[in-house]
């Protein structure tokens, strides 16, 4: 979609508008050929008024001054024509998210576009706002505009779309009719072609290591991202958490790690409550943590490979004492881990940012497995990692399980969860919808991930009682 809007350039292929090939070098070109885009993250100036934002980049000017009256008039006109009421003089930062989005849509419409791209517009909206948006989209359709609506929520596409194209991992995997049954769509979304095989024995679950009960966690926008989760992970088993990204998995894991306060509920490690522990104490208690975003949370890119390998062990002997670091021990550790985990780097002193994604991930995995673990939490352990490294990381995770550690794997790749897990918990809107066996049919898992419990009669769970907003506004790997 960024290619269509000119933010990225295609490597191959061509774009046809009304049958004619076009080259779109930037958003300006895109608007010229009639393509407008509403980004997931709004591109608005918070301290400007609605009219000013809409005019930004195409200000009606009169003798070097901005013709404010004309701008206001234009905004009124467009918003009335499409039934999108807006107060042109309101300041953006005072408006609720849903109205801000409306401003974005009107902004695109004032540029006279024929095709409107909505990139995950509902990710930031409350259910009511979502319904309003769907209504708006129907109105725009009636007014003769084309809309590309990107979402990973089945209910929404089915409600509004005329044609559905499923894209998975950068490929079109199918086209469906909105009347098609949800199972068919779910199957397309989840896919069954790639079957990851991780050789492993039957799990021998032991004592419960991680117990989560009634956990409630708020996200950065103070929404209940985790809404009463109960989980148990036993020694010697892998519990996989499946779910489209942004359904509370991130917040759940961060809360267990002491990075995000729990609003209610309890987390226990080997029977000891750790809900209020600091991250360091949790790590010291024998927890290894592979964070989901390695470049943000996992690594200090400017640090050397050696330093990153002791990022959470630097204050423990033999690496560091009360005041000093033992650089020799750190270097020796680096050499050993680089060899053991086959990290491809020029030297241990090279900045970790210069390594490939797979090798960066190996550095994190190596670090987290370099002290005895009771519990390993791996979030998206193989995202953006090459195939060889995926296999390696998977085998290390299974090896930890076989050694007797409890393992919690969170992934938005269903294949990965199914391949690794001994039990699969499906998260949807901050709740664990079901805990099932990894042998459960894909369609069932896919439906669960879309928030539909095939075993129950109620069709759209949570729809009615749900008054809070959606989870984090990130792309899922399996977006429809």
């Amino acid at each position, binding site marked *: 979609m960024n290619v269509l809007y000119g933010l990225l350039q295609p490597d191959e292929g061509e774009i046809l508008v009304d049958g004619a090939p076009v080259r779109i070098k930037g958003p300006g070109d895109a608007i010229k050929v009639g393509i407008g885009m509403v980004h997931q993250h709004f591109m608005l100036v918070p301290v400007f008024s609605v009219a000013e934002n809409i005019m930004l980049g195409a200000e009606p000017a009169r003798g070097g001054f901005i013709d404010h009256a004309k701008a206001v008039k234009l905004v009124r006109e467009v918003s009335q024509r499409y039934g999108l009421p807006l107060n042109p003089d309101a300041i953006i930062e005072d408006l609720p998210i849903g109205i801000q989005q409306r401003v974005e849509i009107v902004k695109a419409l004032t540029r006279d576009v024929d095709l409107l791209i909505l990139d995950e517009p509902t990710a930031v909206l409350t259910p009511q706002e979502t319904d309003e948006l769907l209504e708006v989209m129907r109105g725009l359709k009636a007014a003769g505009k084309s809309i590309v609506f990107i979402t990973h929520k089945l209910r929404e596409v089915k409600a509004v779309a005329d044609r559905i194209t499923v894209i998975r991992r950068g490929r079109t995997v199918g086209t469906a009719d909105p009347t098609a049954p949800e199972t068919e769509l779910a199957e397309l979304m989840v896919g069954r072609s790639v079957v990851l095989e991780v050789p492993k024995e039957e799990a021998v679950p032991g004592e419960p290591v991680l117990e989560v009960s009634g956990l409630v966690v708020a996200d950065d926008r103070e929404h209940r991202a985790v809404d009463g989760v109960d989980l148990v992970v036993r020694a010697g088993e892998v519990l996989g958490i499946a779910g489209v990204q942004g359904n509370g998995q991130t917040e759940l894991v961060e809360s267990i790690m002491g990075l995000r306060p729990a609003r209610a509920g309890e987390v226990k490690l080997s029977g000891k409550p750790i809900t209020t522990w600091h991250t360091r104490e949790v790590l010291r208690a024998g927890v290894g943590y592979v964070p989901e975003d390695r470049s943000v949370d996992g690594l200090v890119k400017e640090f050397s490979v050696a330093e990153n390998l002791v990022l959470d062990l630097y204050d423990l002997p033999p690496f560091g*004492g009360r005041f000093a670091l033992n650089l020799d021990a750190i270097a020796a550790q680096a050499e050993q881990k680089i*060899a053991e985990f086959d990290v491809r780097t020029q*030297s241990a*002193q090279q900045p970790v940012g210069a*390594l*490939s994604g797979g090798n*960066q991930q190996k550095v994190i995995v190596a670090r987290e497995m370099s002290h005895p673990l009771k519990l390993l939490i791996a979030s998206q352990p193989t995202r953006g990692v*090459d195939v060889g490294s995926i296999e390696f990381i998977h085998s290390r995770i299974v090896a930890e399980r076989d050694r007797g550690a409890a393992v919690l794997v969170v992934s938005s790749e269903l294949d990965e969860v199914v391949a690794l897990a001994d039990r699969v918990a499906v998260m949807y809107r901050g709740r664990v919808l079901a805990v099932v066996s990894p042998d459960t049919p894909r369609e069932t898992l896919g439906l669960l991930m879309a928030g539909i419990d095939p075993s129950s009669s109620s069709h759209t769970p949570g729809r009615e009682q749900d008054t809070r907003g959606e989870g984090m506004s990130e792309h899922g790997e399996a977006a429809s």
Partner: protein
Amino acid sequence: MTSHEPIEAEPGATAASPDKGPALPTPGVDQYHVDPALPAAGQAEHHDQAERQPKHRAPEKEEKRSFARAFREELWADNNFTVTLLAIVLALICGGVLMVVGNAEVRDQWQYLLYQPGKTIGDTWAFVSTAYTDMFKGAVVNPDTVNRWYWNMTTWQQVFYPISETLTNAAPLIFTGLAVAVPFRAGLFNIGGQGQAIMGAIGGGTVGLALSLPAIVQVPLGVLAGALLGGLWGYLVGVLKARTGAHEVILTIMLNNIAFLFLGWFILQQGIKDPNRSDAISKPIQESGKLPQLIPDPLLRANLGIVLAVLAAAGVAWLLKRGRFGFELRAVGHNPHAAATAGIKVGTTIALTMALAGALAGLGGTSVALGTAPALTVDMLGQIGFNGILVALLGRVRPWGVVGAGLLFGALQAGGNAMQTFSGVSVELVGVIQALIVLFVAAPALVKAIYRLRRSPAAAAQAGLAKG
């Protein structure tokens, strides 16, 4: 360790870092810098290493680049050293132009440029070069004095007077430079050096003027009090930032004003103010409280301050490279999210970093209060806190760089005084030159364009460092 294939063979390696180009052999390049004196020994060791760790070695063709060629290429390339040096030259040239503009006699000469170009340009050159020579004489060494001393016409103290002045001026600047450089490594911009230095001066000065203990007790006590009070002033910023998220730049600017006004109030208080004088000045600092001079001579003012400053720089260098707290500090500076995820207490680290910075700036203030100032006055510190920012930037926020930059600025200050005395060029020009140097250093693209520097072969490695 089993694979011998070069790094480029790694799938996805180039995709992950397209701007790095073909993997750059950082160790190989370093090698050329490190062993100019011992090329043979270096080579031998090099090959030894190459056999032990085949995977970590640079590609073969890079190995063949001779030291001389590497040196030549690096010399006129955009590495930090060359850029800094050229920035200084550029600033001095600009300073020369300003000298000419500012001097009526020489400026008038330029009316006759077309009639007697030789004289005009000759006089201008003579004026500017004399001024800069005077500056050098005032900052480093005056050959005339050396000559006169050789013929027993003056004392040896006179010979060392310029150096002593430079060192005296440099000490507080090194401290305040470190006070900016350390938090910078933690991702914090400490504008509060001035306020922290003032608090340090109050702490150290009060001990210096109020007590009469043996010097061996009172001096360390004064230094400690200065570091403590400055540290407290910095810690306040750190805690407020860590707890409330308030921005350190705003906090430190406000605290600068508060410290300045507090000093004005403080020196008027009973017991502090000199009762024998009507102006705002404290009682004189006791002799037993003063930092001892390096050489006990009334002419050579250089005191323990410069020694403490260099020790502080060494301590900071150790801390950043080998210290456990330095590791936390750098991790927080580069990526606070990853630091928090690894269990580092980010808030505590920020608070302690600011406390350390405050203590360093406080020592800077103390080194003035107990070193050269006869008593506490409102303007005794001048602008050392703000000049510290320049020193830190010129020193590229590295401890030894700060020492070098502090010495340079101290020399400019000392030389500027001499220049004013002998050539009649206003000492304010020094401030302009200092600012210009930092301006040019901060705009390396400008310097590169002016001198048409080549892109350094080691630039990629340094680009990473420059960010920190």
